[in-house]
């Protein structure tokens, strides 16, 4: 077959159909079967992982509640110049009262109040009180409303409240993300959160910093253990491995509480030190309810996640490398540092990624032993999920955490190369 005829058309199978098509047909059955085999996992991942993450991303910017609850008001406010410093005109008040009467009958006004309260403290009770008073008003008979409403609740005579409603009336809001990095969306644009309320950036920083320290101390502690595990005879190393895995069989809460007993001022460590005379009775060490407590407990809890990948990588490093290096005249240290260590890096990398990513999202342990300075951003996320119900902010914080992890993962890939990561 000449080049020309090859270029002229696709390769044909014996029956005249294009070869690609006939190949695809013969493979279709196989693909279908493969798809069926992974379908349960695929569905599971979809429902338990992808959909929740997508819904978190959505929730972090979603803000339909204002327009849904106050549809007329949002339209009416469009023509109002919020920078004028003057109250909106009667049209806005009229629209607002009509919206509110509907909202009160559907009991939606308080929900909107709690939403706007994130932006302007005090607005929640304004909506609640207004709702109680407006209930019996008639949109036709009782008009006009401007003075009446201000009479009923003087908050509606405050330009600031109207500016808040207008600023946050869009369906999609950057507000939660801004709040997550200690900024806020004001009617005058993006501004910094007042200094005394700036906490989240600091918490992010602390979470990253402490996770790094925890990862670092895990590396230091795990390396010699993994080396032993990888080089000792099978019988001994199996026993050691059981000791390493033992903590896995104990509940996380129990392990963390055990650290409490160990570290507190009347705890085992302090008692021992005082008994040995190393520490004065009235100068007991403060090693819990602060960053030290979190670092110690989390290092212990996450250690197996460092040891296992390190061990499985070290196990694959043949003895002949170190022997070869020594035969060439390298001392024990040179052999370790130039030959063994570089080859164990994939294990360190895999363990570090694992430990760091686990650490950055840890919640229970910092909550119990972290006091006030040893808590992580996830504790704040938990607070917004279960106590303040500010799920939008929680979602934004979670999204940022996810982005940070992915960014670090990407950096790692650029610097070390992700194919250098081995779990065994």
């Amino acid at each position, binding site marked *: 077959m000449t080049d020309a005829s090859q270029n002229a058309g696709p390769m044909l199978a014996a029956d005249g159909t294009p070869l690609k098509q006939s190949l695809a047909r013969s493979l279709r059955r196989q693909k279908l079967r493969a798809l069926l085999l992974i379908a349960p996992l695929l569905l599971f991942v979809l429902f338990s992982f992808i959909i929740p993450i997508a819904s978190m991303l959505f929730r972090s910017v979603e803000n339909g509640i204002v327009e849904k609850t106050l549809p007329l008001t949002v339209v009416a406010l469009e023509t109002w110049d919020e920078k004028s410093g003057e109250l909106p005109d009667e049209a806005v008040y009229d629209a607002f009262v009509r919206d509110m009467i509907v909202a009160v009958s559907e009991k939606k006004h*308080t929900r909107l109040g709690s939403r706007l*309260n994130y932006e302007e403290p005090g607005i929640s009770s304004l909506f*609640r009180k207004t709702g109680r008073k407006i209930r019996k008003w008639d949109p036709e008979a009782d008009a006009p409303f401007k003075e009446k409403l201000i009479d009923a609740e003087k908050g509606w005579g405050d330009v600031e409240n109207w500016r808040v409603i207008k600023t946050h009336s869009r369906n999609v809001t950057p507000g939660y993300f801004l709040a997550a990095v200690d900024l806020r969306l004001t009617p005058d644009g993006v501004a910094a959160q007042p200094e*005394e309320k700036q906490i989240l950036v600091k918490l992010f920083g602390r979470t990253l910093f402490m996770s790094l320290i925890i990862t670092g101390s895990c590396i230091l502690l795990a390396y010699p253990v993994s080396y032993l595990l990888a080089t000792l005879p099978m019988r001994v190393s199996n026993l050691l491995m059981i000791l390493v895995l033992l903590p896995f069989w104990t509940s996380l809460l129990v392990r963390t509480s055990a650290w409490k007993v160990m570290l507190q001022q009347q705890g085992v460590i302090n008692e021992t030190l005082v008994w040995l005379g190393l520490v004065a009775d009235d100068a007991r060490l403060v090693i819990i309810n602060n960053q030290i407590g979190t670092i110690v407990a989390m290092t212990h809890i996450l250690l197996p996640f460092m040891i296992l990948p390190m061990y499985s990588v070290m196990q694959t490093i043949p003895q002949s490398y170190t022997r070869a290096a020594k035969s060439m005249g390298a001392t024990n240290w040179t052999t370790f540092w130039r030959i063994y260590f570089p080859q164990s890096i994939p294990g360190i990398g895999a363990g570090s990624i694992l430990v760091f990513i686990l650490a950055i999202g840890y919640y229970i342990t910092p909550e119990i032993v972290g006091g*006030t300075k040893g808590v992580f951003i996830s504790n704040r996320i938990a607070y917004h999920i279960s106590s303040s*119900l500010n799920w939008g902010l929680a979602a934004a914080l979670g999204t940022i955490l996810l982005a940070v992890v992915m960014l670090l993962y990407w950096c790692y890939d650029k610097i070390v190369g992700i194919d250098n990561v081995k779990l065994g």
Partner: protein
Amino acid sequence: MKVTKSTLLASAVAAIAGGAMAEEMTIVSWGGAYSKSQLKAYHEPYTELTGVTILNDDSSPEGVAKLRAMNEAGNVTWDVVDLEAADNIRACDEGLIIEIDPDVHLAPAPDGTPASEDFGDQLVSPCYIPTIVYSTTFGYRTDMVPEGVEPPTGACDVFDLEKYPGKRALNKRPIANMEWALLCDGVAYEDVYDTLETEEGVERALAKLDTIKDQTIWWSAAAEPVQLLADGEIFMGSTYNGRLFSMIVEQNQPVGMAWDWQMFDLDGWAIPAGLSPEREARALDYIRFSSDTQRLADQAKYISYGPARKSSAPLVDKHADLGIDMAPHMPTDPRNAKNTFVNNYEWWADYRDDLDAQFQAWLSQ
């Protein structure tokens, strides 16, 4: 959360079968001794009376969050939820629980006083059926009081490091702590919330707390200060009075109570929105039963929390097991209630998030 598989299954089946499974309901509470007191005082008599089986779920600490999640998913599996007042206001604002008309849905007092009057000020939210009055107050180690010094009597002693050296434990949130700080810094009782609404007021409260900050362990679960007191880790700490009662009376720990300026708080029932009419009717029936004058008085036999009805107070009896008189251990007892502080729920509903951000930022400094 201690929901057994069968509980989950049962509630799932109940949700599917709806009215057909009218013999079961899921009641959510806080667990521990508190749930036990409810079981004895409310659940058991109710089951005896009606044959309805009651399933317990200890999810109240995440109650509002779970109510919201169930509400969004359109699948409410709870019938009655025990919430503290502040959470109740939130859930009510969010439309997650239904409004109750006390005079329609709740039993009047035995003398015929309507429920709204019998509960009085305790009805802090239109969705609320309060059952107990409890207080956040201070316990201290009697064996750690310095020699020749009077034992502490109240909240303000926590700020006096000179007289009472040693570690303290306080709740890791602004509620109660901010009020105590201002009160003990000389702000008049009636001005506390007005002061707290200003920036200077918040600063003043935090400045007062600053004086004991490095001596304070901040707790997030009420069991923590109890454990810290038991271990001798702290000299004094705030927690719920019922927990201190069981430490002192049931476990005989060397702990005393410092009642002055105890912070009154409420706990009680709520009914989730979105129940089928049958389930809602049954939940209302249960609530009518479990909030009547006798039932509220009965609960005090098992735990030292005061009944939320005025008419229950005279009926408070002796401890069910120990046989001691419960009245002196009640936060509402005149000897304990010389100076009390009533939480302003409305105010906190507005300013909680804002102050919490400031409080947490202050804590992390």
